[in-house]
């Protein structure tokens, strides 16, 4: 990945205001990340690894104390382009309840475009399109508080889409959802990535979500620890465990068997693991 990505973070340092009598601690300690247009990137790390702070760098909610972040060539410290950056890079937060503003779904989705000063007729079109894109059009007149967590999170995503962004950053969007809500949200963002070419940065600590990404970046202690395709990253089982992270059970199983001397490939999903084992086990007929 070179420097001409859509988002370029270069040697980003960041420290929150320290409490009195305490030394400031760098939450981000020299992070260089580049995200290409149309990519699906998963950003992994345990709590306190700096991944959420990094997310807020991408849309100028936070500014680096040292280093630079560029969005499509625009410097995030440049106040003149602040709203343009936030329009292009939308941020979806963890708690679905706390990011919806209006009491009616469609009015909430309209909030972003209204702030941008889009003409009313066009807002209507954008809102309907955005709601259809997340599969919530039928709920446009509902009250958000009556919806499930997964549905609320899709409304939040629609609210970002209505601003016609190039990129959506999602900060642990599934942490508070049940399995059904999680898969609803994941399906939605994968579809947006594939069909609309929207760049996705998914921050998560669920490994099965990261497995489906095009590229995985693992953060730890304010640094980038690992970076690469999911297979490349998850084959580092020991390193991930050392840094308080998990790997999918499928990956761990083949990894353990490798360690016992069986030449297994690294697998990421149930299906892959079953195939790998099937290829290696004696034929069924040979087993008593």
């Amino acid at each position: 990945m070179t420097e001409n990505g859509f988002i370029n973070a270069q040697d980003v340092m960041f420290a929150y205001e320290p409490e009195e009598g305490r030394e400031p601690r760098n939450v981000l300690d020299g992070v260089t990340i580049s995200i290409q247009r149309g990519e699906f990137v998963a950003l992994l790390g345990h709590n306190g690894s700096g991944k959420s702070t990094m997310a807020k760098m991408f849309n100028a909610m936070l500014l680096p104390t040292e280093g630079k972040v560029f969005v499509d060539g625009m410097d995030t410290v440049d106040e003149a382009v602040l709203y343009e950056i936030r329009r292009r890079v939308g941020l979806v937060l963890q708690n679905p309840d706390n990011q919806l503003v209006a009491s009616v779904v469609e009015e909430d989705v309209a909030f972003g475009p209204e702030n941008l000063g889009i003409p009313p007729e066009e807002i209507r079109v954008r809102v309907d399109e955005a709601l259809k894109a997340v599969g919530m059009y039928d709920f446009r007149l509902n009250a958000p508080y009556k919806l499930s967590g997964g549905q609320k999170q899709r409304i939040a995503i629609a609210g970002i889409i209505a601003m016609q962004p190039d990129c959506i950053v999602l900060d642990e969007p599934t942490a508070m959802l049940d399995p059904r809500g999680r898969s609803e949200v994941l399906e939605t963002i994968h579809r947006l990535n594939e069909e609309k070419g929207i760049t996705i940065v998914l921050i998560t600590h669920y490994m099965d979500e990261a497995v489906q990404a095009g590229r995985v970046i693992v953060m730890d202690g304010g640094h980038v620890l690992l970076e690469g395709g999911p297979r490349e990253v998850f084959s580092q089982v020991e390193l991930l465990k050392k840094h308080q992270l998990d790997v999918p059970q499928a990956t761990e199983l083949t990894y353990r068997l490798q360690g016992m001397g069986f030449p297994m490939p690294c697998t990421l999903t149930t299906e892959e693991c079953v195939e790998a084992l099937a290829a290696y086990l004696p034929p069924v007929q040979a087993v008593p």
Partner: protein
Amino acid sequence: MIRDIALGQYIPGDSLVHRMDPRVKIVLVFLFIVFLFVAQNFVSLLLLVVSVAACILLSGVPMRHYLKSVKAILFIVLFTSVLNLFYGGGETLLKIGFMEIKSGGVSNAIFIAVRIISLILLSAVLTFTTSPTSLTDAIERLMKPLKVFHIQVHEIAMMMTIALRFVPTLLEETDKIMSAQKARGADLESGGLVQRAKALLPILIPLFVSSFRRAYDLAMAMECRCYHGGEGRTKMKVLHAGKRDAVACVVVVVICAAVVVSNIVLPTVLS
């Protein structure tokens, strides 16, 4: 359960009342409420009651929602009516000990009950048929002239929108915290006034903390969506008053005129 309270609840629909301009609705409801108190005799009161009933029917909102909102205030209605029963002149109808019920008192009681119930029903028609956003939007526009006095009309309207949005969420949260503290043996039901007030702390403090957390999150989410005050903001739903609004205005004005006329022609029954 606490979240069953129908507070400013919007019920989506496509009735005549739903489609009216919210600004017109607010002004007319306000006018109507004023005239509920102008009416001084049973003829005009009946006229107003019939009009309220017509509004309810035209709103197309199921009756149970209205019943629910009346049920919530039934106690207040009964209390004030009974109190009014003992005030007022006229001939004595009933005497219990030192308390007397006179004909004027009966009229007073009926009037106060009808007035409060009509007032609640009218506000219910307004909130049931108008989404909170259009409601605040309408208030924002109606108050626009106040900008001259440096009143931050947009900010006030935005605060109302958010408050309405978070009422159900916070009610639900209150429910949850109450359950959690009850599970730790908190006793919310017994003890004197001071003790009960003290027993509320384990509920109020977490509720405050969570409200601040939500407010912080929401502020961030709003900034992420390019919110920067009312400057240069557009609206998806443009308000425009149409023919039906004009008709509604005329009808209401005629009713109000009738109330005034009946007040002049007929004697007052209130004392």
